[in-house]
């Protein structure tokens, strides 16, 4: 009898330890247990996003409250992913383990993620939904979410590359900001500022880690110089590409002249140097606005924004960065239609969108220009911004999209290429190789490790 008891006890223990390993999550069960007779089943729409999605949640939750008639028991939860690649990685891990219950319904992705995940069948095809309404949005809003002619993401933002500058410094040292319409003028402005401030003022920053490639290179100078990592067939051409030489030699020119303050991007020392008037400009995407408003205090009101400078040889402005909300193929996809409604209202409902933006400005929260033409036409989007001394940042962001450069071709090999190229740029910034050696090494390492880009 005792032996029997012991065996039963041990068997029970083993079962208790093993069962959770193979058990499925309970999310579906919870959802189906309490389903609404009116519309969507009770449960939670989980959204993964980079940045500070808690601010977006304020809009989403309000929207849900206003639509209780169709979604009485539905809530929206947002989770921050550090980078879009981080989200992609987590999603891949969930898919690998077959844990569809833990996946988010919605994920914010850039082109690299969309290319990878759509080819793995992990994103819903939104072509039939978006195509009929595409005319309501700015041209090409969904082009970065289009893979082989199918649309896998609803556009959230299309943000231009801009030039932020400290107008007070330009005035103090009698340098005309309008000369920065071209990169030659940008360089000249930097030299004048340095000379007249006796070396106190730097034109901009340079990051010793991976942000130099990301913000100066991939998103900035490279597309503006029409540079290429790969040709149309996926062959590696960066070593011989004239655009790459134009872009990176310009960066080298600024750096050699000592116009760039070397410090980590998005870290306190950079903000302190900026507030101390050591940094005159930021050539960067419009997203930088939220970092400026949040971290720059002493020079608030001194900053202005203008379109990114252009290379005379190419003539096109900054390339925009698009982000899209993609619908994860969770197998059930029960909230897909509800989130489409939410997304559509966020993008096109002028009064509520404007009210939310007003709230964001009050609490220094992030927001971007809408992609819907009707909202952009509203006078609200021309209003002055205190941080920019009365200049309208919203208008400047819209203006920055004019004459945009085309983004670099994105392939499934770009995440790896970024790591390889960035390492060479970092060694260049550290002074361990010159820019020509850096370009030659990028070419060599890409040919060794990637061989040929995987085209979508």
């Amino acid at each position, binding site marked *: 009898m005792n*032996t029997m008891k*012991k*065996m039963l006890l*041990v*068997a029970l*223990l*083993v079962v208790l*330890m*093993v069962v959770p*390993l193979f058990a499925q999550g309970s999310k579906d069960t919870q959802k189906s247990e309490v389903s609404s007779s009116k519309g969507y089943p009770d449960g939670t729409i989980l959204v993964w996003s980079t940045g500070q999605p808690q601010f977006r949640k304020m809009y989403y939750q309000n929207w849900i409250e206003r639509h209780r008639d169709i979604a009485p028991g539905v809530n929206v939860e947002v989770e921050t992913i550090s980078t879009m*690649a*981080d989200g*992609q*990685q987590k999603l*891949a*891990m969930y*898919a*690998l383990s077959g844990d569809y219950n833990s996946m988010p319904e919605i994920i914010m992705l850039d082109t690299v993620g969309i290319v*990878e*995940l759509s*080819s*793995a069948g*992990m994103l819903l095809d939104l072509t039939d939904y978006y195509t009929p309404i595409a005319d309501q949005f700015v041209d090409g809003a969904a082009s970065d979410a289009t893979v082989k002619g199918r649309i896998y993401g609803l556009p959230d933002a299309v943000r231009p590359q801009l030039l932020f500058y400290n107008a007070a410094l330009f005035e103090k040292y009698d340098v005309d900001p309008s000369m920065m319409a071209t990169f030659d003028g940008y360089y000249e402005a930097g030299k004048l500022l340095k000379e007249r401030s006796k070396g106190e003022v730097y034109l901009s920053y340079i990051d*010793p*880690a*991976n942000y130099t490639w990301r913000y100066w290179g991939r998103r900035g100078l490279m597309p503006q110089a029409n540079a290429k990592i790969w040709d149309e067939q996926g062959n590696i051409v960066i070593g011989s590409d004239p655009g790459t030489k134009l872009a990176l030699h310009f960066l080298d020119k600024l750096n050699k002249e000592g116009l760039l*303050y*070397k*410090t*980590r991007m998005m*870290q*306190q*020392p950079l903000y*302190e*140097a900026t507030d101390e008037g050591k940094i005159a400009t930021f050539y960067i995407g419009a997203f930088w606005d939220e970092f400026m408003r949040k971290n720059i205090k002493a020079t608030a009101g001194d900053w202005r924004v203008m379109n990114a400078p252009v290379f005379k040889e190419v003539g096109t402005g900054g390339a925009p960065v698009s982000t899209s909300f993609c619908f994860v193929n969770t197998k059930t996809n029960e909230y897909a239609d509800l989130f489409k409604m939410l997304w559509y209202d966020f993008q096109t409902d002028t009064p509520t969108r404007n009210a939310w933006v007003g709230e964001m400005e009050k609490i220094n929260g992030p927001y971007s220009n809408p992609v819907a033409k009707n909202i952009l036409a509203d006078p609200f989007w021309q209003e002055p911004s205190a941080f920019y001394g009365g200049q309208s940042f919203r208008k400047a962001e819209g203006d920055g999209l004019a004459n945009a450069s085309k983004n670099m071709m994105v392939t*499934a090999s770009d*995440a*790896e290429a970024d*790591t390889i190229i960035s*390492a*060479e740029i*970092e*060694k260049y*910034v*550290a*002074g*361990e190789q010159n820019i020509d050696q850096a370009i030659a090494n990028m070419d060599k390492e890409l040919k*060794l*490790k990637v061989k040929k880009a995987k085209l979508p």
Partner: protein
Amino acid sequence: MLRNLKKYRIPYLFISPFFVLFLVFQLIPVVWTGYISFTEWNGLGSPTWVGMDNYTLMLQDYMVSDAIWNTVAYWLAGIVGILTFALMIALCLNSDRLKSKKFFKTTTFLPYVCASVAMGLIFGMLFDENAGLINEILVALGGGRIPWLTSSTFSKIPVIILFNWRITPWFTIIILSGLLNISKEYYEAATVDGANVFQQFFYITVPLLRNIMFFCMLTITVDTWKMFNESYILPGPGSSNTSLFQLIYQSAFKTFKLGYASALSVILILILLLISIVQFVIRRRQGEV
């Protein structure tokens, strides 16, 4: 075998939870890693068999050799630095002359309970080339600014300092427990025989701490070879201070080359195995194991 299993089914049942967990969480993943290392796989879809390609590439990849040498540097600096400081601090904490021992024990342990990522951010500020406190002190003393994190020459130093600073308290406590186990009678007898403090340290303390020190050395070895947070949060140019574990993470989850990352993991396992075997052989020759 089957008869034995049947005869001892109750004991076997009692130990079976360990084997189930070992199988699911350790053995199968290790075997799976070995298999994946011979494939090209991005985590989605099916792996493609590529034979020895990942291992061949590893031999040509300067980032791998950088990562291995960096990790060796972290390991050696860890063994020497952590053991030296931990032993010194433990000796101080064990000293009869020290007052307020509880206070000092608590403050000594504090770095270990601080989050390494948070500390990494603070160290990043301290070692900033233009605005960091370390360089400000150097300049105030008449020296020049050192590009701690912006040059390949210096970028390992902040990582070593952060790692050693964080880990030393843990080993201090372990060594202190060893010191507390050494009977005071040995020291009293040595004092009567005329041995000075240094002689007592080298002829009593060190030999009696040998087992503890060996355990610490093994643990530091494993800790340094799987170092991630410190080098990740304090990046230097390129792969100048990347640890092997960090490179595995980057290959797997930043560039989605799970086959290559698995091949690197296999190499890491082999290195750790080799180091452990060498340490055990040395100990066995010394007659300690």
